[in-house]
């Protein structure tokens, strides 16, 4: 009896060790590149060309890499602000447009409904790199070229398939009775939507927001082509200049610092709102 329990206990222990051994190994693989890059970004300029062995600074923490990064374009602060304006603007517009559209698709019947829905989803299938030139020309006609607002509109459009799909599902999940009860109480249309339904689809909105933020923050190709003055460049465009090097030599310290500036906000946003992100992702995957 005792020995059997002992064997079982030992097997459980071995199991646990194996489990966490694998877990820690896997976690290391996924975390290490961030960690090494982040640590290396604090090395002084004299060390930035050396291999990261070890990755941490050997002669005291230094902000050289960030200072050099700041020397590109109009300064890293300005470009970070541009990226923030574009990303947050994209979030606000995406939420507004997709909540309305999701509600419309979920609650109303109208002609060509399915065709229009498929049209929105079809946006996913075109590599937008291939429609960039027409996009540029259209924005120029609208007087919106080289403007962060124009870029925002393009990003919102790119976000729509996912967001409208998400929001339609979110509204579908709200029981019709709640809406009818509110209608009886006299709430109509936009008021009904904002006061009664919005709080119920908050998780969906959180999901849509996170995806919109991350995609707008990280996008570089459209920004590269559609923006044409230094002052308007977003962070990823700044990074192409850093990657191209200056005076014929790439400064890896500046690259690491730039990656840190681009990556850290994404990680923070995700870690704070992880619950909503995952919930939305799974809801989308199950549907």
């Amino acid at each position, binding site marked *: 009896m005792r020995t059997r329990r002992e064997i079982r206990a030992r097997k459980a222990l071995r199991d646990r060790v194996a489990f966490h051994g694998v877990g820690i190994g896997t976690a290391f693989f996924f975390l290490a590149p961030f960690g090494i890059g982040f640590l290396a970004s604090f090395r002084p300029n004299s060390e930035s*060309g050396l291999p990261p062995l070890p990755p941490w600074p050997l002669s005291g923490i230094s902000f050289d890499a960030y200072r050099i990064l700041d020397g590109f*374009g109009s300064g890293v602060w300005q470009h970070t602000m541009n990226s923030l*304006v574009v990303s947050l*603007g994209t979030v*606000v*517009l995406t939420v*507004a447009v997709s909540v309305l559209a999701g509600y419309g698709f979920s609650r109303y019947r109208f002609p060509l409904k399915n065709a229009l829905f498929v049209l929105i989803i079809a946006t996913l299938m075109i590599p937008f790199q291939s429609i960039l*030139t027409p996009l*540029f*020309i259209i*924005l*120029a006609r609208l*007087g*919106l*070229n*080289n*403007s*962060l*607002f*124009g870029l*925002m509109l393009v990003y919102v459009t790119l976000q729509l398939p996912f967001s409208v799909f998400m929001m339609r599902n979110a509204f579908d999940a709200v029981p019709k009775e709640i809406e009818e009860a509110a209608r009886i109480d006299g709430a109509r249309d936009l008021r009904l939507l904002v006061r009664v339904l919005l709080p119920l689809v908050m998780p969906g909105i959180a999901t849509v927001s996170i995806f919109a933020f991350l995609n707008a923050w990280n996008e570089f190709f459209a920004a*590269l*082509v559609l923006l*044409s*003055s*230094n*002052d*308007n460049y977003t962070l990823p465009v700044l990074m*192409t*200049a850093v*990657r*191209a*090097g*200056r*005076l*014929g*030599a*790439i400064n890896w310290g500046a690259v690491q610092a730039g990656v840190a500036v681009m990556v850290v906000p994404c990680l923070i946003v995700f870690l704070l709102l992880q619950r909503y992100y995952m919930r939305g992702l799974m809801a989308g995957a199950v549907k």
Partner: protein
Amino acid sequence: MLKRLLATTLAYGLGLSVASAETISMWVRTGIGDSFKEVVKAYNAAGEDKVELTEVPFSELVQKYATAIAGGQAPDALSLDLIYTPAFAAAGQLEDLSEWAKSLPYFSSLSPSHVKLGTYEDKIYGLPLSVETSIFAWNKELYRKAGLDPEKAPKTWGEITANAEKIRALGGDTYGFYFSGGGCGGCMIFTFTPLVWGAGADILSPDSKKATLDTPEMRKAVDIYRNLVAKDTVPAGSASDNGVNFLTFTNGKIGQQSIGAFAIGTLVTQHPEIDFGVTLIPGVDGKPSSFAGGDNFVVTKGTPKLEAVKKFLEFTYSMEGQKIMAKYGSLPTRGDIAGEVLEGLDPRLKVGIEAIAVAKTPYTLQFNDLINSSNGPWATFINAAIYGDDVDGAFSNAQSEMQSIIDAGQ
């Protein structure tokens, strides 16, 4: 609420694209040093007109400018890599500057290869802004350490190879030679073709209608570089350097490298610790040559600010403007005052000026497709011929692909 929000965002977006009237917008590519930026700074400090400079990553400048033209949103003027001037002029996108240019008293002493490239069907669309020639540099400190005479410039590739081996023998991460061999067509046309030009061969026929890549001279040049690689005198990073580390010489651990005259300024101001000498790049048979590169100043067709643009260009051609340019590493564009401009500056810049006399520049409307694109046949050829196993294949592939691009463009 939503409407107001939209309105404010809209206002913000529009507010960004408003520009004041007497400001010239101008683009310049990254990576050509600070000389032009300093001229603009001086001009903005002195004059009434302002020049608003936008730095565009060098690899994206051409497509960005072309897209901007397509959208009617191009800058007033542009510092354009001179090799692209024919293509843009041919497309009818540039302002004809012939009359004004010829009226300049110093017109005949402006850098000839720039004016040649700036000319299309007898009209002048581009004028020299910065001149850059390719030259050969060696690190005197490493020469000394390797037991070589630091004051003796190598005259042949045999000498260079022998020196490279001796420098490599110092061990560690000290290497004898460097080039950007990972698909940087621009770097290699600049530093490598002088080897065949010096011997009288070329990669394109004079009328640019035929690819003439496979010549005995080019085979010899390729062998020289292959040999340098085989003898481990070139760092491993070279094979994948697409140009971002073009100036690896500045790290002080490279014994010899063909670089641009711009780099003299960079080395003197940014890396005063490096003691270096410069000479002309020897051809495969010892006769030197060089690539005359740099930027042409071009004006977008139909700009309303033509007069202001001309005024600014006259400033850069003035003694003051030329001196600022030279101080920050660009060679004088005006031959007539070159001596005076370079007075008191680093004597090595004179080698850069000497190179102009033996320098060539290919004239083709398809420079980007053939040569500069990192996915073009020339860039591919360099990597395959120098680093690959099948040299013959590299030659025949590149030769036929270049010819097919030329034919497709006819």
